[in-house]
């Protein structure tokens, strides 16, 4: 009797069985060609952007995200300086440009507003096409990584799935998880800029997996300039770079592996890229850039409802004017301190980078865990934050040992926790019911549910 080797991914046999039963084989065959996936994804985005223009012109409830108006206004402010709207940096005065931070609630890098200048010159939807284009480029990077690195590393040479045509077919199907993900294409076509950052992060990962560490460091600096959270990936990168020449024994060996010329060089280049961009932006746009992009986040209090259960704590403990402030016990002061969320978030996400970031092979998984943890324990969380880690799923799925049943359960729990929260938030936002307490309870459910899902994914990866 011949013993059939257990496949790395148990999903595949179930997958075929399910596909046949559901008669979706033609659809899957269509997506097995990356060329088709690209065409469908591109057309879908173009149609949605055109639809958004029509919808917004005819409906009170807009398809376009409020943030898109913020970016577009910021771009307009750069283009049209005035007495109350001048870039406040030293170079800014010489360049004669406006200040994107004149637009209230614009708290992004000025590069984003610069990218959207053609909204003024060409068409107001230019930015949406740009964001959709970033989606497509991210898809191409995912596909290339799957074909060149991820799938060959998880296939056994004897397996039927290791042939080049099979790899291409699977890479295409996996890439479609990103490109045809409703969350991904709706967010970019509504005009949210997450896809730009997603592209930068994937570019960093691509360079890292190709061992182009200088480019990876530059891309990491750019990503961190764009939004601060990708700095957590630096820890894992340093771990991987250090492990490339072998790990010494004991903690001294580990220390030598993470602190050496190659890791220091990576750190210096990524820091220089980050600092260089910030200095340039500061020279042009001055203190408003520094405050709105970075300093604001140090003292912000997110009292408005969001997935994070912290919102309720913040709302209830806001220093209300006229309140006599009672003396709080030590532990209550600890609970209400911003450090209470910051510490576990940093310990787990940086710790995850240190623990798992020991091999290039595990880098995608490490970044996924770091980001997932960062989002779960962040003091503020909206749906867009989920894209920060679902981005890695197409690259991670081939490396998971998970049955289709468990995959379905985890997916259901992941979506279910969000649906539970969103249904309550709808009651507050659009019906005006007094459901703050219920929202907080659902925020707790979301936190536990997503933690459980992450733990399940970690188990499926690590066995």
């Amino acid at each position, binding site marked *: 009797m011949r013993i059939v080797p257990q496949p790395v991914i148990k999903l595949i046999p179930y997958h075929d069985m399910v596909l046949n039963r559901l008669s979706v084989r033609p659809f899957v065959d269509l997506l097995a060609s990356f060329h088709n996936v690209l065409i469908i994804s591109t057309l879908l985005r173009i149609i949605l952007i055109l639809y958004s223009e029509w919808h917004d012109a005819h409906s009170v409830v807009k398809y376009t995200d409020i943030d898109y108006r*913020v970016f577009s206004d910021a771009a307009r402010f750069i283009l049209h300086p005035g007495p109350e709207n001048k870039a406040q940096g030293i170079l800014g005065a010489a360049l004669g440009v406006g200040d994107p931070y004149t637009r*209230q*609630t614009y708290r992004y890098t000025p590069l984003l507003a610069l990218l959207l200048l053609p909204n003024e010159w060409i068409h107001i939807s230019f930015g949406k096409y740009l964001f959709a284009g970033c989606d497509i480029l991210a898809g191409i990077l995912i596909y290339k990584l799957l074909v060149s690195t991820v799938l060959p590393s998880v296939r056994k040479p004897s397996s039927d799935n290791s042939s080049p045509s099979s790899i291409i077919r699977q890479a295409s199907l996996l890439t479609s998880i990103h490109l045809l993900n409703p969350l991904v294409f709706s967010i970019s076509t509504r005009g949210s800029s997450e896809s730009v950052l997603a592209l930068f992060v994937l570019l960093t990962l691509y360079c890292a997996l190709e061992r182009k560490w200088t480019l990876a460091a530059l891309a990491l600096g750019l990503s961190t300039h764009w939004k601060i959270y990708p700095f957590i990936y630096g820890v894992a990168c340093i771990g991987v770079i250090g492990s490339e020449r072998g790990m010494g024994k004991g903690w001294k060996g580990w220390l030598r592996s993470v602190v050496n010329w190659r890791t220091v060089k990576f750190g210096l280049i990524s820091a220089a890229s980050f600092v260089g961009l910030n200095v340039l932006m500061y020279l042009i746009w001055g203190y408003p850039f520094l405050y709105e992009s970075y300093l604001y986040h140090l003292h912000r209090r997110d009292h408005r409802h969001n997935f994070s259960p912290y919102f309720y704590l913040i709302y209830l403990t806001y220093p*209300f004017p006229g309140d006599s402030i009672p003396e709080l016990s030590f532990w209550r002061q600890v609970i209400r301190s911003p450090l209470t969320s910051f510490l576990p978030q940093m310990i787990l996400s940086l710790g*995850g980078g240190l623990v798992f970031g020991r091999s290039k092979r595990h880098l995608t998984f490490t970044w996924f865990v770091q980001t997932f943890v960062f989002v779960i324990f962040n003091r503020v969380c909206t749906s867009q934050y989920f894209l920060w880690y679902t981005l890695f799923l197409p690259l991670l799925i081939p490396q998971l040992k998970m049955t289709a049943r468990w995959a379905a359960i985890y997916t259901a729990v992941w979506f279910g926790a969000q649906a539970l929260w969103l249904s309550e938030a709808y009651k507050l936002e*659009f019906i*005006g019911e007094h459901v703050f307490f219920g929202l907080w309870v659902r925020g707790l459910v979301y936190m536990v549910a997503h933690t459980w899902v992450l*733990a399940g994914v970690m188990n499926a990866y*690590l066995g």
Partner: protein
Amino acid sequence: MKRQEVDSRVFQYEFGSGLHISVVPNTRDEEVFYQEMNDFLDLIGLQGSDEWIMSYNSLYYHTPEVRDWTLEGYGIGRESALDINWSNGQVVIKTLNDQAVKEYQQETGVKKEIGVFLIDDEISTKDDLVLSGVRIELMGQEDYIHRTLFHIKPRIRKIGESEVKLVSNGMHPKLQTNYEHKQDLDQDVDLESCQKYQYMTIPKEFFLDKYQIGNNQLVVNFGNLDLEKPSYLIKEWGTELLLQVPNQLANEIEIHSRYQTPNNLGKTTISFNKPINFIACDLAKDEEYLLQNNPFDNKLSIGANFDKLFTNKTVFYLFDQPHDQLQVDIPNARPTNVDLITLSVLFVGVVIILKRLLLKNKLKLE
């Protein structure tokens, strides 16, 4: 102040209800200003406040209700429409009184002049009023009676009725206005360009998103413009707004609730005045003279009324509406102690992840 049922063709106090105070400070010292202002308010029985907003050309304070009122002793009732002008240490109180009989005492050396007029409807139109009657000069010794006829051009006119509703939409109620035109503007030959507007004062519990509405529509937006702060962090009383609205029979504006201070009710009830709805028209140049020489014209260089935002040659066609207020409930948190449970759940989450990080799978990654 409160509006009163008087002939609004002549006496034009089409202000929003409640208390409106406009001030041009004569000092740069904030402390001195508040002291002086609060002393004056105290004199007329009103409470001082530091919730002023910077309006068009003055500081402006408003409450939808007149909370304290102590001028009854001077025969000035809470319901009278009146102006109190305080300048250079002198207070002038202008009030409307519909008493049919009024006694006047003659005083030696004091000249008083009393006029009794009726609108001559036979020769008046809605844009040109002819007042016919007598003026009596009370000189102390001898009285002189003069037959008098004069022509006034009212700045504020009526064109129809409007109905304003606050449509429930959770944290984003919608202000819906329907207009009924009872007269046609085209009958007025002295008008040049016209545009429909809504003037409103909204309390700090709400805000309008100026970016959502756009500069073309939001002509004036005085007050705290922050889009994110909860109402308990807004010092100002609210916002004064002038919106240019389409010349159509209905329009809708979305307003947004700020987060409120937690209370045991779980909601905060807010009342505020309905917008004043009108069409503003420029008057032909040769008609300006009459408009500006109307002795009853109530337009002041400063003041808490929409007319300060327009030129002297602008006339206003108002849409009448009931003077009741708009009321809306904003949900808010109830004071609850959630610290321990939040911390416990956070702890559980951390333990679940730490367990995977540290205990189970370390070796397999080597």
